């Protein structure tokens, strides 16, 4: 017996590991000002419930991973009230990398759309 929900979860997890990086990098390249985790989480979830690929808590390790690769940089700033916040912004390399990632994404998207649309039958 195949556990449909389990299969779905596994597929979603595998699919999201690359796309979430792309989405977060894109948000930060497009943003005019540095953003902190909560704001980014809001933006990711802002579309509609269907569009949400990732839980807000899961974006933090991705942000840190992107920072580790030099695509993002961050500063910790105190806030007037509440805890200090870590503000992320895209680096120049990050913007460059986003272009190649976007191209890869477009290719992948076209390919998958074609396959799903029966183009290769």
């Amino acid at each position, binding site marked *: 017996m195949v556990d449909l929900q389990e299969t779905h979860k596994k597929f979603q997890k595998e699919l999201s590991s690359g796309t979430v990086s792309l989405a977060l990098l894109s948000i930060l390249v497009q943003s005019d000002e540095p953003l902190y985790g909560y704001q980014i989480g809001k933006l990711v979830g802002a579309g509609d419930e269907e569009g949400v690929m990732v839980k807000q*808590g899961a974006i*933090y*390790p991705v942000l840190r991973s992107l920072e580790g690769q030099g695509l993002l940089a961050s500063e910790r700033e105190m806030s007037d009230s509440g*805890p200090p916040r870590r503000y992320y912004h895209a680096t120049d390399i990050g913007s460059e990398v986003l272009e190649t990632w976007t191209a890869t994404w477009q290719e992948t998207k076209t390919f998958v759309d074609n396959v799903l649309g029966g183009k290769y039958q």
Partner: protein
Amino acid sequence: MKTTDELIRTYLSDLKAALRGADKATVQDALADAEEHLRTALENELAENDEVTESEVLRSIIQDYGEPAEIAQAYRSWEAALPPALAETPAARRAATQGTGTTGRAGNAYPGFFGVYADPRAWGGLVYMLISIITGTLYFSWAVTGLATSLGVMILIIGIPVTIIFLLSFRGLAFLEGRLVEALLGERMPRRASFTDSSLSWRERLKILLTGKATWLSWIYLILMLPLGVIYFTLAVTLLAVSLALIVSPILSYGFNLPIGTVVNGDVIWQLPAYYTPLFSVLGVGLATVTMHLARWVGRIQGKFAKALLVSD
């Protein structure tokens, strides 16, 4: 009805439990991220909308943030994808793909006696040994001055702020040392300073700062870095200097006619023939390589030591 503080604390302890067995530094980072997010979100959402109760708002925030198990899984998988600097050795990669071991000892990655020269960890360890006399001296002086000054002014009204500043500086220095250790020695250390609960009163925070294990373990580490730094620096410099002298001994002997291998025993002077000096060179290369092995080993031990003292459970 639980207060929001209790809810947040429950969530954090669940997350910590879900991360059991993960790297200590990863756990610390994950908890800091979660606490920052939950508190910031709570503050923002409450400002936007004042009709619902605090705990209701928080429950929905936690729902959006994700179940502890799910979030723990995300940290584990991203952590596996991004090892600390220098940890990405061929052996580590092999071990990871074969599912054996966790980080793979660097020793396997660069096999053979001379393979050590290609190992970034050995070079990192050597640099660490050389600079530890500077950092060690600074840490020690600051730790001793800070504690002595704090104790000295304790009876005055300015005693408390002075003490707080010094205690915070110990934590800050320990964090910086952690970054240095991760960069040079490849031991995963916290990438964020540990979180302070802003909802606590300053008295409670002071109490945590004063009685917290982290503060005093950091202080002890800063103190111990002086003797360790002296030992590391002396070892590194002595061994390198002797190796270098041995390696260049044929040049000194043939090129500059310097007496190499002279043994003076009272009035008897015994001179080793110059054609022995190439042997000294071979010995020097051997000693330099042993030094590199030592540097790698010291780096590994120092990394473990830093982790034990500077990363809280």
